[in-house]
């Protein structure tokens, strides 16, 4: 009886972990691609998560339609990404200048969100995704199942984008050697803008997808930024495959900790990161950066 209960709890935690993992994936993937190609540590990525969550919440709660929320969150952040890349990051391409610009943006965007939405938590969920379903003895929240399906769908789209399209090929080549891809005739500035926009869009999307689960409140994205940094280090900086594996892994470990050893939930991420760094300093799928 006890072992059956344990298995049910374990499997429920596993499903929750995969669902959380897909949110981490969308959030971290953008950060990872932007860093891999543009060598920018984008500290404003978390603020885009927060803003995407707020904007998606506004639209979804007014229209009652999750699809409009998803579109609003992703489109607004994609647009903001274009504006930031073309008008702010382009000013100075040196890494230090860009770090300072993104830190400034993080403070500005978080403050603007705070002014607009205040120090309050908001939560909204679509009626049709309320409640649970039973898969044998396992209880699964409908919304978390939706997250897995939708997350998988977005991940496949992103994977196709980066492996089967011309743009994706240029990005992967650019991650390997940014100068040489230009020497073949690619206008890297355009690729930068598109990449920053896609990364920002994914952050906004991830932010809004978390609203029905954990709500949205000031600095939520900036809090999760640390998780995203740890995930891309665990997966291997600049590695798409590594980010995918690390996101799901961290999601599962965090949820298992939340069920079994709640006091270790926050710290579990860093235990995993340290363990990986000690055994494989370049991350699970990373290459050694010279």
């Amino acid at each position, binding site marked *: 009886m006890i072992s059956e209960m344990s298995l049910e709890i374990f499997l429920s935690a596993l499903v929750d972990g995969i669902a959380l993992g897909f949110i981490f994936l969308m959030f971290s993937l953008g950060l990872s691609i932007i860093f891999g190609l543009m060598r920018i540590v984008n500290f404003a990525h978390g603020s885009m998560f927060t803003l995407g969550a707020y904007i998606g919440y506004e639209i979804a709660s007014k229209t009652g339609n999750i699809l409009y929320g998803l579109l609003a969150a992703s489109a607004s952040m994609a647009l903001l990404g274009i504006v930031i890349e073309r008008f702010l990051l382009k000013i100075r391409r040196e890494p230090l200048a860009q770090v300072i610009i993104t830190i400034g943006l993080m403070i500005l965007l978080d403050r603007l969100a705070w002014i607009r939405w205040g120090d309050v938590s908001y939560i909204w969920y679509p009626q049709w995704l309320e409640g649970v379903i039973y898969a044998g003895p396992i209880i699964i929240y409908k919304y978390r199942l939706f997250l897995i399906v939708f997350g998988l769908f977005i991940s496949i789209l992103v994977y196709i984008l980066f492996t089967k399209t*011309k743009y994706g*090929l*240029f990005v*992967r*080549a650019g*991650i*390997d*050697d940014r*100068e*040489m*891809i*230009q*020497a*073949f*005739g*690619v*206008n*890297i*500035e355009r690729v930068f803008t598109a990449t920053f926009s896609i990364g920002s869009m994914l952050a906004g999307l991830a932010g809004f997808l978390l609203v029905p689960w954990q709500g949205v409140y000031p600095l939520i994205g900036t809090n999760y930024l640390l998780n995203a940094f740890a995930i891309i280090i665990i997966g291997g900086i600049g590695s798409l495959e590594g980010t995918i594996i690390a996101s799901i892994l961290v999601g599962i470990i965090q949820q298992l900790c939340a069920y079994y050893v709640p006091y270790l939930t926050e710290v579990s991420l860093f235990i995993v990161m340290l363990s990986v760094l000690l055994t494989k300093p370049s991350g699970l799928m990373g*290459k050694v950066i010279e």
Partner: protein
Amino acid sequence: MLEIKDLKVFIGSLYILQGISLSVHKGEIIYLLGRNGAGKTTLLKTIIGFIKPSSGSIAMNGIDITREPTYVRAKLGIRYVPDNKRLFMSLSVEENLYTALLASGLSKDKAIERIEYIYNVFPDLKRLRKLKASQLSGGQQQMLNLARILALPNTKILLVDEPVEGLSPMFVSKILDALMRLVEEGLSMIIVETRPVLMEKINGRYIILNGGKIVSEGYTEDLLKNKILIETYLGLHKSDK
């Protein structure tokens, strides 16, 4: 075709190039020689646009490209083959070729056609096409390095940095064949060499750089007879070759 006038490059507080002027005409081969640190690679990198010059000018077919980004220079037909085999290491052999072809503006169908042509020239690459570039040997990487360029349309001038350095005689011969093919197509080239390997096979003009300045220039046939020049600036004795 390519006209460089009084090119100067500062890196940090160092003067790497101190007023280089040279012209490359259609179909001409120029060997850039000199010891390590003479500025040979810097000159190539400045021509392709990786390094911005402090002063001077670079023109291609009469168009001033001194301030143009690298991709514009590539579109004008300037191609760079780096010495350290800067392949896209996480991509497969075929993806490396495909990326280069698509980047140069070819359609997907044309790119696939060109890849087949490259496989005819380098049958080894067809066999290795699924392997990642990082999994190739040094010689195979250099073959792919050159094959990427060979595949490209609209190439006018090739900047080749030490194409046979450190390669086994078998690969040297393959690289030489590939370069000969490009010479026959009428391409211009600037080839960096630290040892006179290629210039013994393919004649052309030479320029010796020392401390970022041109210290000697002329024809390779004359240089190969001039032991003093070779020993002074290339640091080679006849037995080294």
